[in-house]
């Protein structure tokens, strides 16, 4: 803080600036640095001193986001709202910061301690969500980190990562000064210096290279640098090994990393303590295999960087230079051919040759629109420039999700400078400006240093290298405005005005900065210029495709495994980038789309991933190249939310001049916000689309004309998602908070208030917890064992990067510890109750019977088998679900209103007509789906070949062990895994192998089951894939082998008995509409496997033969057609549900159908309206938050399970129960998404359209 009066300070600042001709923006920035904000008095002083109207200065100060007119707190916490951070859940972090600080974003706490700010993109996209506390980057922040992060800010402790500004960086600016002071006056002097530097550079000298761009530093690169310096210093190795600190290498996911030359050995995610070992190995020329990159596909260790899949498919013309040099040492750059292109160009003395060379290279602007760079230069060269001409490097990389320009500026600033000097020479430009966004402090620092060095050596300034040609470059900083990436706005910003675009024509080429001819190119374009002159235009044009030459850097971020910067030849397909380089999806969720081009771009759906990436193809697909942001989105990304996100961004970033852009983006946001809250109407979509087209059509600048793209492209490809929000009030990606409520509850087919019982367990109120579990679900103990637990898949703890709460284990704990009698369901009495027939005593049928009985109806349940339970008894193995658990739970449901008739099947023993004749007034069909699909290869009638259903039933119901010898199971679903695990336990079985046509990553079975199967020794034969290797190892413990990517083609038999099968190998082909890659048979890859038993488990369907004769409509897959809203079939009074309708699904889905059928049959019999208006489910009952917050950061509890050894040949239940202490501890991990709604409910009434969650 300055003690002198404000006007004096302002005068001092202004004096410095008149000399440097800096604009108003940098003056304001210095004032803000001085006072922490812009005091009114200071702005008035600037106006008085400069003579510029106060109204102008005030306008500029309020236009740019980084200026504050209000004093800020002692600590500034800034959350990044960039797209990549957004899809990884920044909004949850901001909400939590707001909650804990007790202020809204952009506010300061009353004690002036904290200011909470948001930035539209901080350019550390691979590390999202990112929060910067007082200039210190925190990467991959989760909700549970927030408290600690605030504490760090308060105490000033910097954890995990080093500070972006460390001493060694400052030091290198100094040491980077030329050793021979004085400038290079001739081209010969340059060549002499270059030759000397090249000689001094020994490529055989062991070198430790540590990338320390912003991302690297945020991940801990500084600690590595310090460790290396210490090690080299203490061991006195300065002469034997060098340490090189460079910019980013691109593989941000693996930061901090170390590269060792010679050899290019790549060590990812290096820990500081391993540095001495790495240095030792480098000295000995050895490789530390254990620290090397592990190929997720093959599981092998890969030593060399260029063999790592992420790097292997790239063409790193620009990015590859970063690792060769310390960005702030100009000698490093010169030693690696730097400035040689400039020297050659100057030596040739033909400026027009420069322009034609660039034209010949076919280089197109990398900033987005793809205008020919050579043509632009030609136009500039042709402009008369008596007052001078400008060249501008546009480094205002505002696209959220793109950060390649930052990386080039940080890692190789001299390449930009060299490019600009060559450009100036070719076009006759006199002044250069690099316009950098101020969110990139490290880039500004490196560029400033590089400009200084270039000037000192005589590459900039008067009479460059004695050629008589003069040119200089200055740095102009932005102040946080996305629109300043637009060229006319950028020019105004350089002139110190509000960044409002203006009408073109006149184009900047005619009238640019201060009215002088100006050409603007993007950072990456400039970085390409020296390459063109080094390799020659023709060689440059060889890379890429015709009309789209060269390489392009993309920032591959979002829901993809290998995030980072990738440089590929133009024309590579999106699939190659996302799957081959990016390694595909991060988890089991399928990749749905990529978003390219930032807020001006659009989404490209997975079906179109074969699209080659170039300017023209992307435009045709409704998107744009933009600066190269490529944000991968999976099924957990909601497209309505994506569009809303961009509109929120644009309504803030629009300059606000054009009425249609300003109001249009606001109104589009408003409509999208309504849709995301469930308040959209069918008219909303038409209005949205109409408005979007008009905004596109009627605005002046590029920002406005493309502002509607996010809306139009999502409407084009994902209209069904919008409709789902509007008509069904559902957000299938579980993103739109108001529609989701508590995700665990909304995800549950029966709407169990999982959050509530988890909270009650945490409080030790176990009986209440049981009632919460039991109320919507008559089979709590069954579901506690075999539920597919969508609640856990949707748990916000899991979707934001952690492990979900073990909800099913908690349910199991409650059902084991609490006596079911604590719950007594309410019962209604009916006079003259109607009678209902239910066909099938599985979970759907029994649930319906129970609910109807509670409502007072008389129900008869007909079961084809000898005992009730359906799949629960006949197919699910007893080691997962013991029969006595099922029997006990069914016994509790049966009462006086329910008559159970076993061994009676529809079609065989009775007909629908007969039932109605007997006096039943309604029928519910729930016979399940227990007919296996045939393999369709012939020979399936041989002895030793079974369908999975026959095999499972034979064992579960009759105790027959059909499997003998070597067993093969075909399929990858739950019944395949069940069959394999039962087979492995049977007495005469020698081995079990599972054959699956895709890789096990695409297996539909619950991952727990695949894991367990492998533990039991089942071999999985699949295209073995990355994440699941752990699971495969576990499964193999149980004795099951797995082979994937194979399909059966022929069955061999002798004397009517199976002897073996032929299988063909598959490779994964293109991505199909389901987002999975299609298995394609590899020709001539057939192989023979001798087998004694073959179990076909490729799928099941209902046994609905003959149902069409009873007046029902049967779908092609054997399921019965019903109205999904009411479960009513075409025949009045006949309802159907469970697997019979949905095909094989989870037990809890069947229970949900049973509930719905009972409600609908009740309405039908009462003659009530069958139409249900969709409603939103919000948590209702308030349960206090966990009081012991410290305890929330523990790992997910591990379920007690039987050891794999004791499981073999045993049918004892595998999973055990948690102890009360374990359960309460696990329950504390819950993020309590419900509190947002229940606390709000206490304050204000619920929005319209939200229903009671307990019905």
């Amino acid at each position, binding site marked *: 803080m300055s003690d002198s009066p404000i006007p004096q300070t302002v005068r001092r600042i202004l004096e410095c600036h008149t000399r440097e001709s800096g604009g108003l923006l940098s003056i304001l920035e210095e004032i803000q640095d001085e006072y922490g904000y812009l005091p*009114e008095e200071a*702005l008035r002083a600037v106006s008085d001193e400069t003579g510029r*109207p*106060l*109204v*102008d*200065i*005030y*306008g500029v100060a*309020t*236009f740019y986001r980084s200026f504050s007119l209000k004093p800020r707190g002692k600590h500034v916490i800034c959350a990044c709202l960039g797209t990549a951070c957004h899809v990884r859940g920044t909004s949850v972090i901001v909400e939590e910061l707001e909650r804990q600080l007790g202020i809204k974003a952009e506010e300061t706490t009353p004690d002036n301690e904290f200011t909470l700010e948001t930035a539209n993109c901080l350019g550390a996209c691979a590390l999202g969500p990112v929060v910067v506390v007082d200039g210190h980057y925190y990467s991959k922040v989760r909700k549970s980190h927030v408290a600690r992060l605030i504490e760090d800010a308060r105490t000033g402790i910097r954890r995990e990562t080093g500070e972006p500004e460390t001493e060694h960086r400052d030091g290198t600016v100094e040491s980077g000064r030329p050793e021979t002071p004085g400038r290079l006056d001739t081209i010969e002097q340059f060549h002499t210096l270059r030759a000397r530097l090249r000689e001094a550079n020994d490529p055989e000298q062991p070198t430790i290279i540590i990338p320390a761009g912003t991302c690297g530093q945020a991940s801990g690169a500084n600690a590595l640098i310090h460790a290396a310096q210490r090690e080299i210093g203490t061991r006195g190795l300065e002469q034997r090994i060098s340490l090189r600190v460079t910019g980013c290498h691109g593989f941000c996911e693996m930061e901090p990393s170390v590269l060792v030359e010679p050899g290019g050995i790549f060590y990812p995610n290096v820990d500081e303590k391993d540095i001495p070992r790495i240095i030792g190995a480098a000295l000995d020329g050895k490789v530390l295999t254990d620290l090397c990159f592990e190929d997720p596909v093959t599981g092998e260790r890969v030593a060399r960087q260029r063999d790592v899949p992420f790097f292997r498919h790239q063409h790193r013309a620009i990015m590859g230079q970063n690792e060769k040099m310390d960005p702030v040492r100009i000698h490093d750059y010169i030693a690696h051919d730097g400035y040689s292109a400039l020297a050659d160009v100057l030596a040739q003395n033909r400026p027009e040759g420069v322009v034609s060379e660039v034209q010949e290279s076919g280089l197109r602007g990398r900033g987005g629109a793809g205008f020919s760079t050579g043509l632009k230069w030609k136009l500039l060269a042709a402009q008369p420039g008596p007052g001078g001409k400008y060249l501008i490097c546009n480094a205002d990389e505002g696209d959220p999700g793109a950060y390649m320009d930052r990386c080039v500026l940080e890692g190789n600033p001299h390449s930009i400078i060299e490019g600009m000097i060559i450009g100036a020479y070719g076009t006759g430009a006199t002044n250069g400006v690099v316009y950098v966004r101020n969110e990139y402090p490290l880039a500004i620092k490196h560029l400033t240093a590089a400009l200084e060095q270039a000037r000192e050596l005589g590459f900039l300034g008067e009479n460059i290298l004695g050629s008589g040609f003069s040119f200089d470059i200055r740095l102009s900083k932005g102040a946080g*405005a996305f*629109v300043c990436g637009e060229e006319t706005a950028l020019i105004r910003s350089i002139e110190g005005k*509000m*960044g409002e675009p*203006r*009408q073109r*024509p*006149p184009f900047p080429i005619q009238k640019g900065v201060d009215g002088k001819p100006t050409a603007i190119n993007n950072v990456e374009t400039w970085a390409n210029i020296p390459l063109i002159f080094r390799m020659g235009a023709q060689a440059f044009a060889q890379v890429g495709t015709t009309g789209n030459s060269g390489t392009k850097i993309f920032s591959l971020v979002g829901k993809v495994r290998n995030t980072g910067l990738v440089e590929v030849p133009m024309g590579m397909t999106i699939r190659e980038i996302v799957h081959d380089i990016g390694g595909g999806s991060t988890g089991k969720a399928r990749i749905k789309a990529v978003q390219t081009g930032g807020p001006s771009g659009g989404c490209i759906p997975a079906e179109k991933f074969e699209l080659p990436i170039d300017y023209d193809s992307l435009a045709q697909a409704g998107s744009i190249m933009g600066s190269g942001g490529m944000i991968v989105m999976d099924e957990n990304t909601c497209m309505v939310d994506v569009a809303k996100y961009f509109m929120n961004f*644009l*309504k*803030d*970033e*629009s*300059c*606000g*001049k*054009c*009425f*249609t852009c*300003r*109001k*249009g*983006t*606001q*109104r589009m946001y*408003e409509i999208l916000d309504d849709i995301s809250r469930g308040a959209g109407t069918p*008219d909303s979509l038409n*209005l949205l689309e*109409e*408005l979007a087209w*008009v905004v596109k*059509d*009627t*605005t*002046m600048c590029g920002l406005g004309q493309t502002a509607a793209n996010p809306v139009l492209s999502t409407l084009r490809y994902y209209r069904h998602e919008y409709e789902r929000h509007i008509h069904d009030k559902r957000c299938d990606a579980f993103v739109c908070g108001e529609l989701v409520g508590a995700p665990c509850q909304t995800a549950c087919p029966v709407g169990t208030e999982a959050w509530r019982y988890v909270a009650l367990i945490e409080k030790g109120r176990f009986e209440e917890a049981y009632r919460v579990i039991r109320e919507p679900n008559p089979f709590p103990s069954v579901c506690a064992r075999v539920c597919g637990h969508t609640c856990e898949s949707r748990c916000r703890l899991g979707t934001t990067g952690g492990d979900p709460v073990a909800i099913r284990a908690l349910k199991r704990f409650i059902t084991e510890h609490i006596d079911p009698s604590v719950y007594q369901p309410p019962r209604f009495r009916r006079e003259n109750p109607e009678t209902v027939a239910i066909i099938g005593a599985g979970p759907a049928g029994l649930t319906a019977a129970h609910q109807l009985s509670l409502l007072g109806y008389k129900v008869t349940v007909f079961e084809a088998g000898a005992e009730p339970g359906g799949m629960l008894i006949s197919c699910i193995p007893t080691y997962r679900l013991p029969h006595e658990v099922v029997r006990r739970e069914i016994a509790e449901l049966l009462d006086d209103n329910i008559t159970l008739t076993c061994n009676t099947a529809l079609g065989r023993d009775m007909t629908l007509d007969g039932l109605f004749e007997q006096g039943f007034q309604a029928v519910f069909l729930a016979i399940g789906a227990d007919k296996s699909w045939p393999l369709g290869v012939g020979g399936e009638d041989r002895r030793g070949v079974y369908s999975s259903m026959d095999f499972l039933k034979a064992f579960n119901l009759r105790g027959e062990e059909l499997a003998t010898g070597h067993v093969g199971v075909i399929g990858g679903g739950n019944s395949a895994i069940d069959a394999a695990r039962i087979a492995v336990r049977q007495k005469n079985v020698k081995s079990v192998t599972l054959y699956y046509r895709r890789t096990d990553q695409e297996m539909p079975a619950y991952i727990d089951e695949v894991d367990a199967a492998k533990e039991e020794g089942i071999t999985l034969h699949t295209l073995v894939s990355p994440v699941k290797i752990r699971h495969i190892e576990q499964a193999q413990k149980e004795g099951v082998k797995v082979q994937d990517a194979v399909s059966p083609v022929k069955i061999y038999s002798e004397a009517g008995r199976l002897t073996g099968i032929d299988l063909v190998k598959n490779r994964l082909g293109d991505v199909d509409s389901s987002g999975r890659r299609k298995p394609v048979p590899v020709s001539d890859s057939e192989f023979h496997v001798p087998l004694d038993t073959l179990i076909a488990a490729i799928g099941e369907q209902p046994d609905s033969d003959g149902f069409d004769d009873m007046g029902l409509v049967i779908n092609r897959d054997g399921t019965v057609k019903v109205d999904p809203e009411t479960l009513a079939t075409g025949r009045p009074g006949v309802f159907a549900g469970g697997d019979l309708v949905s095909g094989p699904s989870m037990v809890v889905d069947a229970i949900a159908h049973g509930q719905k059928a009972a409600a609908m049959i009740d309405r039908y019999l009462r003659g009530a309206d069958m139409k249900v208006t969709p409603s939103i489910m919000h948590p209702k009952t308030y349960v206090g938050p966990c009081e012991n917050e410290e305890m929330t950061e523990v790992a997910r509890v591990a379920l007690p399970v039987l050891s794999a050894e004791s499981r073999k040949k045993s049918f004892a239940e595998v999973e055990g129960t948690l102890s009360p202490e374990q359960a309460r501890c696990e329950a504390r991990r819950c993020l309590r998404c419900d509190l947002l709604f229940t606390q709000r409910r206490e304050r204000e009434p619920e929005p319209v359209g939200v229903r009671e969650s307990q019905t």
Partner: protein
Amino acid sequence: MITLEINGLITSVEEGTTVLDAARGLGFPIPTLCHMEGLSPYGACRLCVVEIGEGPRAKLVSSCTYPAEEGLKVRTASNRVLRARRVILELLLATCPQSKIIQDLASEYGIRRQRFKQEYDDCILCGLCVRMCQEQMMAGAIGFRGRGETRSLGTPFDVQSEVCRLCGGCIYVCPACQLRCTYNQPEKAVCGGCANLPPPCAEKEPFDDMMCYMDPCVACEIKKKE
């Protein structure tokens, strides 16, 4: 001289003439809100959009800022232009319903209802007043502040400007509210007088005013709110 074609008519204008002036010179009406003779062209309201170019390269530009170019083909009332103007007018009505000028224009373009959530702003940020103040009155008392949705118009720091001479020029040119001068706090540079506009239909016969054809009737909406 530059020769261009407007709605099929060929005309020659001096270099530097805007398409708007060229079209109006031929008698083609083009609605504007932010344009005024004597003030520099600004291009904020977008009502004056016209279609230029042909085929896939055809586009809409604001005629008040677009310079007449040799051989340019202009359509001032194509379907695309009219569709855009209707939506713009609907947006204007949704923002600033009290303005008689906007109401009349909306009526002229056959708009009977607006489909957005109703707001009651008293400014469309056309910037006429800013340019009046700066270019004609040479004062520079008021200007734009902020950007995007928080962009607003007023004096620095929202206090009475030292350079304002209370000439009233800003009020004179305002298309959004003509009643500013009746506001009871004349010392404030930019007032909110429009908010006090009484519903015209309350005093007149129903349907006497064109506003009553609109759904919802703006003035009645305000009255209901109160």
